């Protein structure tokens, strides 16, 4: 798995793919925390379009980033949740904290 990211102004888009467990959770955490430390990032949008599996370790990393972004007054969103991973995200309650968008464009213009 290679994590991609793109900074559009103060918006950070992170694109993930494949199966997301504790290994990817650690890489995601490292990447986002490093960018939050070094760059002027306000909002974080996580693109899940290419993701096939998510477990609670990855959800924990997502929530952890939400806490940090939220404390700094930013917004966090999920872009495109594939059908097979939706129930897991719903059970974890992440959608109560983050908006969901149909595309990166939609997320960026909603901000």
């Amino acid at each position: 798995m290679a994590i991609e990211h793109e900074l559009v102004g103060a918006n950070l888009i992170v694109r993930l793919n494949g199966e997301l467990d504790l290994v990817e959770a650690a890489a995601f955490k490292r990447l986002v925390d490093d960018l939050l430390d070094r760059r002027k990032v306000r909002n974080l949008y996580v693109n899940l379009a290419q993701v096939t599996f998510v477990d609670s370790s990855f959800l924990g990393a997502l929530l952890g980033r939400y806490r940090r972004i939220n404390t700094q007054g930013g917004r966090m969103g999920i872009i495109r949740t594939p059908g097979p991973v939706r129930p897991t995200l719903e059970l974890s309650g992440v959608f109560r904290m983050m908006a969901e968008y149909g595309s990166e464009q939609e997320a960026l213009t909603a901000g």
Partner: protein
Amino acid sequence: MVQRNRVLVELAAIPENVGVARLLAAMVAAQGDFTVAEVDEVKLAVSEAVTNAVVHGYQPDSAQDHSVRMEVSLRENVLEIIVSDAGRGIENVQLAMQPAVSSDPDRMGLGFSFMESHMDSLEVDSAPGRGTRVRMTKRAGTAHLSRLEAN
């Protein structure tokens, strides 16, 4: 379709082997009469159980020679999965199994809940210093997620 199978695996307790365990269990489930959605549920339960052994069972610094055992058996469309470690064990199993209870502030405490909600049965046997053994079963044709989606 395979009627009976048994696969036993002993994995070094490293994060990268969680995916190995997941795929192994998925392959055995897929040999039986499990649907794609059911195989996904098995993968989630295995991911949670094996992650717990790697993350909570052993101290990270001593992890090198520790291992996690998983036994996957398929018999007449019932999958039985036993994940065990020889790690530090759990003091209060009932408490640990509650949703949102975790000894680690960076984790969600949803591991046992996910195992419970995606399998037909879950038994946890653990005591401090005696390791942890998680036994789960699932019968083909019981996809929990799809039921949830239908509600």
